[in-house]
């Protein structure tokens, strides 16, 4: 499994006191793991710090609220991990 996923899973486990074994790439952070929006801020903070990125939570929330995206696209962990990898790649890409 990717190191990005392991880092994210460990962050979720520690931040929300969820057993690490219960966190899989298929887990939906909200529907399966029961993480609410406030707890997700702590997770976002830890992810931002760990990877040196800024998760675009406002944009994601707006897209979901507008019906332009599903929560699965951002909050199923394999998808979240892919988004993080994209942000990391964009950060290191030449301007």
């Amino acid at each position, binding site marked *: 499994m990717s190191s990005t996923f392991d880092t994210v899973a460990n962050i979720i486990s520690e931040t929300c006191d969820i057993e690490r074994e219960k966190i899989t790439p298929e887990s939906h952070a909200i529907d399966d793991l029961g993480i609410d929006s*406030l707890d997700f*801020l*702590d997770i*976002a*903070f830890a992810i*931002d*710090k760990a990877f040196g990125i*800024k*998760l*675009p*939570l*406002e*944009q994601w*929330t707006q897209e979901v609220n507008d019906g332009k995206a599903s929560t699965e696209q951002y909050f199923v962990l394999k998808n979240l991990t892919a988004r993080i990898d994209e942000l990391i790649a964009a950060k290191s890409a030449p301007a």
Partner: protein
Amino acid sequence: MRLEYFLLIDRIAELRLDERTIRADATVPDTSTIFEGHFPGYPLMPGVLLIETMNQASGWLLIALTKFTRMPFFAAVKEAKLRSFVTHGQKLSVSASMKHEGSGYAMTSAEIRHDGKVVCNADLTFRMVEFPSPDFRASMEKVAAEIQFPMEALGHG
């Protein structure tokens, strides 16, 4: 401080946009109905109001950094430590610094000092949202003027 109106900052003393810090003055009133119950004959500033005081200083910092385009709403407090009693008439210095600016949220570290000594500190989280209405923003601008919020500094951030 106007405790009954929840206006806990008297004056913005220093705003440093480059360092993302703020310092404010706040004097605990000599009398307040709050002290009649907390506690009779032994007036103590309630800890929750000290935390709110740190919230408000942090909030003004965040409003400044977002150039009055976002309203911070208190979401979480961590590591709050109430280190000394605070009582009526005391002059407090409230300071806050940006700890992390996320997307739609922000985290600050704040503390209150009295006579140079830290009396409380906390790490605070805010949701950053658009002002709910023009009237809401106007009411905040009115408070900003009352506490000498340096509106002119925002143009140079």
